[in-house]
C-alpha cells in the first residue's frame, strides 16, 4: 500500500465542501474494481471493520493480498458468481470535496447500466488497459458519455506498470481517444496514466512516470468544476406539488413547490406557465421556509405568483422571455433498459419532469450501433441495451427542451402502463450520431431548438 497524505478534514472545512457525482466505466478486466477500491482505500474512506472483512475473505480464498475489488461486490449472487449485477453507489470524501460514485459494472449489460450511472454524473472515468489501447468497448463508453452529455470525461490509461511506464504508449492512446471523443462532442477530456494496482497517479503522484505533469485521478476529481452551467441556462421550474395550508395562520397561502431544473428565478420576474400559456409575476420565493430574492438550480423551493391562476403538478413555470415551446410530437434518442422490447405502435406512458402522460410510439427510424456509430434504419423494435431514435406522439403537450440544452428538462422515461416497468430512458432532440435525421425532424416542428 502506498502512503497517503493526511486527508482528514478540519471541522470547518467539512461544511464548506461541494459535491461531485461521477461514474466509472470499464470492461471486466480493465481493473475498474481495483481503481474504485484504490480510490476508496487511499482516500482513507475504507474503515477498519470493512477492511478487516475484506482481509478475512481474501485470506479464506487463499489470496496473498487483500482483494480491493471485494469492497464493492455487495450481493450474495455477486460474491458467488464473481460478477457485478447492477449499479452501486459509493461515498467518499476528502478535505476538498464529497463524492458520490456510480459504480457501473462492465459486463454484457453495459449500456443500460452505464446510461443509468451517467445520467446523474458530472464526470465519467473511462478505463483503458494500456496494453490493449482504445478498443470497441472504450468507444462505446465514450459514445454513451457523449450521448448522456456528461460534461467531463477522464481517460484513465491503466496498467501502465505492465508497459514499462512508457510515455509513448500513453501518448498514443490519449491522442486516439481524445480525437474520437472530441468528434462525439465530449466537451472536456483529461487523460491520466495510472496503475490502479500499484497506486500510480490514483491518489499519489507516480514516481515511475516523471514525464507526466498532470493531476492524479483524485486531484482532478477534487478540482474539476461542478455543473454551474445549470444556472447559465434559461430557468425551468416543474411544479411538483401545490402547498395550500388552509390554516388560521396561512389562510391564503398558495405556493408551487418544486426543484429548479435549470437557471435562476428572481422575485419580480415575469413568468409563463406551460402548457396553459398563462402569465404572471413571481411574488415570492420560499427556500424551504426562508424567503429569498433569488434561487437557482438545483435548489428545492416554493414559488408564489401574483395572480391566482390554475396551476397543478406537471405544469412548468418558465421566464416569459425564454419559455420553451410545447409539443405533442417528441423526437428523441432512447436507451432501452427493459427486458421486454419496445415496438412501433406500443402504447406507453411518458414521464417528463413531474408530468406523466399517455403516448404512442409512432416510429423507430433507426437503431444505433455503438461500436461504429452506424445507423440501422427501421429496426421495428428496440430490445434491452439498444439505443435508437424514436418518434413519440403524446396525448397532451409537453414543455420539452432539447437534452443538449438541459439534462433535466430534456430527459424522460417511457413506462409500460400495464405493469409500471421503466422501458426506456429518453433524451429529446438532436443526437450526436444522427444529425442529418434530427435536422429533418426540426423542419417538421419549428418548436425545437436545435
Amino acid at each position, binding site marked *: 500500500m502506498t502512503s497517503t497524505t493526511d486527508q482528514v478534514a478540519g471541522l470547518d472545512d467539512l461544511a464548506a465542501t*461541494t459535491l461531485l457525482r461521477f461514474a466509472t466505466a470499464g470492461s471486466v478486466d480493465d481493473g475498474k474494481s481495483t481503481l474504485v477500491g484504490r480510490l476508496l482505500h487511499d482516500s482513507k474512506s475504507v474503515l477498519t471493520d470493512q477492511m478487516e472483512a475484506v482481509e478475512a475473505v481474501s485470506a479464506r480464498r487463499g489470496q496473498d493480498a487483500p482483494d480491493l475489488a471485494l469492497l464493492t461486490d455487495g450481493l450474495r449472487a455477486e460474491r458467488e458468481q464473481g460478477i457485478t449485477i447492477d449499479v452501486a*453507489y459509493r*461515498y467518499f470524501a476528502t478535505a476538498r470535496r464529497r463524492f458520490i460514485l456510480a459504480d457501473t459494472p462492465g459486463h454484457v449489460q453495459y449500456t443500460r447500466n452505464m446510461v443509468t450511472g451517467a445520467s446523474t454524473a458530472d464526470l465519467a472515468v473511462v478505463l483503458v488497459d494500456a496494453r490493449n489501447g482504445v478498443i470497441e468497448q472504450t468507444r462505446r463508453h465514450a459514445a454513451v458519455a457523449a450521448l448522456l452529455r456528461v460534461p467531463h470525461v477522464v481517460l484513465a490509461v491503466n496498467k501502465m506498470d505492465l508497459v514499462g511506464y512508457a510515455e509513448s504508449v500513453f501518448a498514443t492512446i490519449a491522442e486516439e481517444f481524445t480525437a474520437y471523443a472530441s468528434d462525439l462532442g465530449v466537451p472536456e477530456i483529461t487523460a491520466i496514466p495510472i496503475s490502479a494496482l500499484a497506486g500510480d497517479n490514483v491518489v499519489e503522484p507516480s514516481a515511475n512516470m516523471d514525464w507526466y505533469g498532470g493531476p492524479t485521478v483524485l486531484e482532478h476529481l477534487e478540482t474539476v468544476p461542478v455543473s454551474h452551467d445549470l444556472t447559465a441556462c434559461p430557468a425551468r421550474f416543474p411544479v411538483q406539488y401545490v402547498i395550500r395550508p388552509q390554516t388560521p395562520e396561512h389562510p391564503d397561502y398558495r405556493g408551487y413547490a418544486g426543484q429548479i431544473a435549470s437557471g435562476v428565478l428572481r422575485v419580480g420576474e415575469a413568468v409563463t406557465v406551460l402548457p396553459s400559456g398563462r402569465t404572471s409575476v413571481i411574488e415570492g420565493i420560499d427556500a424551504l421556509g426562508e424567503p429569498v430574492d433569488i434561487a437557482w438550480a438545483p435548489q428545492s423551493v416554493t414559488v408564489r405568483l401574483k395572480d391566482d391562476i390554475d396551476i397543478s403538478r406537471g405544469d412548468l413555470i418558465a421566464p416569459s422571455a425564454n419559455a420553451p415551446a410545447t409539443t405533442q410530437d417528441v423526437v428523441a434518442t432512447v436507451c432501452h433498459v427493459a427486458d421486454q422490447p419496445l415496438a412501433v405502435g406500443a402504447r406507453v406512458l411518458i414521464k417528463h419532469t413531474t408530468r406523466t402522460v399517455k403516448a404512442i410510439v409512432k416510429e423507430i427510424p433507426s437503431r444505433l450501433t455503438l461500436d461504429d456509430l452506424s445507423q440501422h434504419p427501421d429496426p421495428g423494435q428496440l430490445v434491452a441495451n439498444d439505443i435508437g431514435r424514436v418518434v413519440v406522439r403524446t396525448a397532451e403537450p409537453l414543455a420539452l427542451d432539447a437534452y443538449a440544452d438541459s439534462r433535466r428538462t430534456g430527459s424522460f422515461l417511457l413506462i409500460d402502463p400495464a405493469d409500471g416497468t421503466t422501458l426506456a430512458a429518453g433524451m429529446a432532440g438532436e443526437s450526436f450520431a444522427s444529425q442529418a435525421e434530427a435536422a429533418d425532424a426540426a423542419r417538421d416542428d419549428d418548436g425545437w431548438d436545435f
Partner: protein
Amino acid sequence: MTTTVAHVHEETDAPYALSHLDALESEAVHIFREVAGEFEKPVILFSGGKDSIVMLHLALKAFAPAPVPFALLHVDTGHNFPEVLDYRDRTVTEHGLRLHVASVQDYIDAGTLRERPDGTRNPLQTVPLTEAIHNLKFDAVFGGGRRDEEKARAKERVFSLRDEFSQWDPRRQRPELWQLYNGRHAPGEHVRVFPLSNWTELDVWQYIAREGIELPEIYFAHEREVFRRNGMWLTAGEWGGPKEDETTETRLIRYRTVGDMSCTGAVDSDATTLDAVIAEIAVSRLTERGATRADDKMSEAAMEDRKREGYF
C-alpha cells in the same frame, strides 16, 4: 418582505454553487414532494433514531408552511430505549402528527412470532412492519436507510418497488435515471422510498448541527449500566441482559445508532455536544453498523437477506 440567503454563498467560492449539504437537502426534499404528488397513502417510518428524525425535519421543510401530509409508523420491538419513546411521543404531539405503532411484543404475546434464542428482536420487526403496511394500505413507505451503511444498501434504489410480499429483489430493480423516479405499482405492491440514500453518517450529523435539530439524549455521552456481549456494550435491562456469566459496569458511553436494546451497542465516548460527536465520527475508523449492530454480524449477507424478506 424578502431577504437573500447569504449562507449558501459563504459555503462555496462560486456564486451559484450549492454546498454538499444544501445539494443533499434539496434532493431529499424533491423526493418527499414527488411522493406527496404521486401516491395515495404514504407513511414515514419513524424510530426516533437520527436518520428518521432528519427525514421528518426534511418533510417539515418540504411542505412548510403546511403540515406534513404523512403519518408516522413506528415498529416497536418492545425493547426500545425509554428516552427514545419519550422523544417519539413529544415529536408527534409537537407537530400534530398521526402515529401508528406496530408492536413486536403483541405478535409474541399472540404466539405468531417466537422469541429468538439469542434474544435479538431486530429480525422480528419484518412481520409487524409488512403487515402494518398491508393492513393500513400504505403505498409508499419512507425509510431512513442510507447507501453508505452497508454493501447491500449500496445497491438500493431511491424508489424501491416491493411486491405483494414486501420482498426486495436486487435483480429486478428498475434502473433509476436522472431525477425521474418511477413509483408505479400494482395494487398490493408498495414502494419503499429512501430520501437519505445519498447521505453519509457524517452528512446526517453535520445537517443536525446546522439545522439545530434536537435528538434523544442517548446520542450524547452519559453514564450507563452496560455489559459486554459479542464485543459490544449493551444496556442492562429487563429485556434479557445481562445473563449469569455477564457482569455489568457503569461506563461513560453514547449511542451511534438507536435501535433495539438487544442488538444495539454503545460506544465509549465523552462527546456531550454535537461538535464533539462530529469530531469523534470524523476520525472514527469503524463504520456505524460495524461499531454498533450485532444483527449485521450474523452473516456476510445478513442485511441483504433481511431486505429480501421485507426489512428496510
